[in-house]
């Protein structure tokens, strides 16, 4: 947990703990040394008090003067250790061992027998056993001093009794530890603010670097770099230098990305322009052929009407395509019908004849068609023209329009060089703009994606010879086209 704290807290806390630990150890050692010294001091003090009471109490014992003995004991007892805690007391006993007076009369009742009785857990000897000064020790460490008081003719006038309870011998931890605690408090008062300042001074540049690193990805690197701290410490200089280099590289990368984006935007504009031109150019080629036909067979009303209808639908396709490229435009779309498939075949036939390609078609329509006609006409025309180009002279192209209740499919295969699915995906998603052939495929791919359909290259194993390349396009059937639906790039 300590390691999770910031340095500005760790350092003063560590200093405080070190000081506290030192104070604790010093107090423990001092307590042991002092306890032994205190015991000796207590013994010495009590012996002196007993000696003094023996001298001054002699006339009082001789006169049986309880009051004077009491006043003497009351004063002398204050010299005994821990007297203020009630842990020590003194008394003068008469020759029979009864209290003449005690410093604490309530626990040393005047006139009551003291010697030969149990006093505070200590069995005191009988008067005849106290011929010399002696001590009585209890199990809890408390002590009783007894000293006979004799007259000039060596008669026993009485006894001095001093009692010290175990409490007086117990180390006074507060007194023992007070110097260390005061020293510790003073040390902490100085060290904690110093440690705080040191910790903050030490971590300030690190925190600033951390804030700069956190800003990477969010703020502009050019705005972040000036916020890096100027440090003199070699280690911090290395960190700051590394972050600065990182910011420089990021700055350069962002500039390159912006340039690439600009180029990409220009390329996208170019692709759209090329696509528009390509999409318009395809029907235009067919329409030109129709005009030639119209010129040659204008006198035949049936042929003329058919050509005019073809021209109208072709122009309508161009109009729809250009309008559809405007995202804001709302186009009234109709469903595909078999006539559209015929139109596409008609438009592609001149190109096939030009390239000496045999064009055949089939249809398997098992459900009502309901798919955007313009889009599908564009897809079918694109795929047919691409297949014709791919098939080359004397090649063959086959187109099949099929539909069931769930989807509408257009399958176009040719005898040209095989186009793998991977190559198709590469061309369909190419953004380089260096593959003009890919524009049509790209348009097909985008339409498939936009209408939740499929567009892929069929494996050669699944094709009937002599066809080697087959492109399969499908979109859901019986579903109205929503011209406002977003186009996925």
């Amino acid at each position: 947990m300590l390691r999770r704290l910031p340095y500005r807290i760790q350092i003063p806390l560590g200093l405080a703990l070190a000081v506290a630990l030192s104070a604790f150890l010093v107090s423990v050692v001092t307590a042991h040394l002092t306890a032994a010294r205190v015991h000796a001091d207590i013994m010495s003090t009590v012996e002196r008090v007993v000696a003094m009471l023996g001298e001054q109490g002699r006339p009082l014992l001789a006169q049986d003067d309880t009051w004077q003995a009491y006043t003497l004991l009351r004063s002398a007892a204050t010299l005994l250790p821990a007297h203020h805690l009630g842990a020590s007391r003194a008394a003068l006993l008469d020759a029979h061992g009864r209290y003449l007076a005690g410093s604490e009369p309530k626990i040393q009742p005047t006139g009551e027998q003291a010697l030969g009785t149990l006093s505070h857990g200590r069995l005191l000897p009988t008067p005849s056993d106290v011929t010399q000064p002696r001590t009585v020790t209890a199990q809890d460490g408390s002590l009783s001093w007894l000293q006979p008081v004799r007259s000039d003719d060596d008669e026993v006038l009485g006894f001095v009794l001093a009692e010290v309870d175990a409490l007086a011998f117990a180390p006074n931890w507060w007194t023992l530890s007070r110097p260390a605690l005061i020293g510790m408090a003073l040390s902490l008062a100085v060290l904690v603010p110093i440690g705080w300042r040191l910790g903050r001074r030490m971590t300030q540049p690190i925190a600033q670097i951390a804030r700069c690193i956190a800003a990477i990805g969010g703020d502009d690197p050019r705005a972040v770099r000036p916020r890096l701290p100027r440090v003199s410490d070699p280690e911090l200089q290395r960190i700051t230098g590394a972050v600065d280099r990182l910011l420089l590289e990021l700055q350069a990368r962002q500039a390159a990305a912006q340039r690439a984006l600009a180029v990409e935007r220009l390329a996208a504009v170019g692709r759209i322009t090329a696509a528009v031109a390509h999409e318009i150019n395809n029907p235009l080629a067919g329409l030109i052929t129709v005009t030639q036909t119209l010129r040659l067979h204008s006198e035949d009303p049936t042929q003329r009407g058919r050509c005019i209808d073809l021209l109208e639908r072709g122009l309508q396709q161009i109009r729809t395509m250009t309008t559809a490229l405007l995202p804001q435009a709302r186009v009234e779309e109709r469903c595909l019908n078999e006539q559209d498939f015929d139109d596409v075949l008609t438009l592609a036939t001149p190109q096939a004849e030009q390239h000496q390609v045999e064009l055949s078609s089939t249809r398997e329509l098992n459900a009502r068609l309901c798919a955007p006609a313009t889009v599908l006409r564009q897809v079918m025309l694109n795929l047919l023209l691409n297949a014709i180009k791919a098939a080359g002279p004397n090649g063959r192209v086959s187109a099949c329009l099929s539909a069931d209740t769930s989807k509408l499919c257009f399958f176009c295969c040719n005898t040209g060089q095989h186009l793998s699915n991977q190559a198709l995906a590469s061309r369909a998603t190419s953004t380089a703009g260096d593959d003009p052939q890919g524009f049509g495929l790209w348009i097909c791919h985008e339409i498939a994606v936009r209408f939740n359909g499929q567009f892929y290259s069929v494996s050669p194993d699944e094709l009937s010879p002599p066809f080697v390349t087959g492109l399969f396009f499908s979109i859901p059937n019986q579903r109205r086209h929503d011209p406002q639906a977003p186009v996925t790039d």
Partner: protein
Amino acid sequence: MTARVGYPVVFVARETYRSVLDLLFSDQLDAAWICGYPYTLYRSRLNLISTPLYRGRPVYQAYLINNGRPESPIRGWVDLKGRVLAYADPLSNSGWLVAQSQLRSAGLGARDLRRGFFARGHRNVAEAVASGLAHAGCIDGYVWETMRRQGMAAAHQTGVIWRSPWYGFPPLVSRLGASDGLIARLTEALLGMHRDDQGQALLDALNLSGFAAPNPALYESIAAMARAVQPASV
């Protein structure tokens, strides 16, 4: 007092009446405030100057006090058997003589007490009882009441369990043969003390209300009691 008497007045305090009497009889004192009992003992050698008025009367009572606790077993003189009794002074009426008379009346002798001792003063009697040194004490009622009035702890830690009949208040006396003029001026100053503010302040401090003219008859009851207790003494 010096201004009133016209003679330098010095107050001297001693622990015991014996010490005071020794100074008086050795002509080291001109006058003394002693107990009625030593006055009756040495009436032939003493001249009665005046008797203080306590609460307006020249009489007082002796008290028997205990530690003041309701659970104290000492409720009267009879209960003192096997107990420790503190006396004030061997020449004190309230602090010794009355106690001897009452103990005798209770059928108790000196040996029936566990211990009896003199505390050298009435105030010390109260302290001895309060501290537990003695179970009971014989004290001058005027001194005990004055101690309580002055807020002394020893008085508040003790309680009165017996009050004596009224006795003549401890008088001011002089040695026979002392200067008549001096004693007359002293008597006049004492009797007139309550008439001025300074004197009244002194009386208030002493818890007295004034001084009365000498009346030896006041102390007859003490003398009678002394004769009863110690026939040979008076």
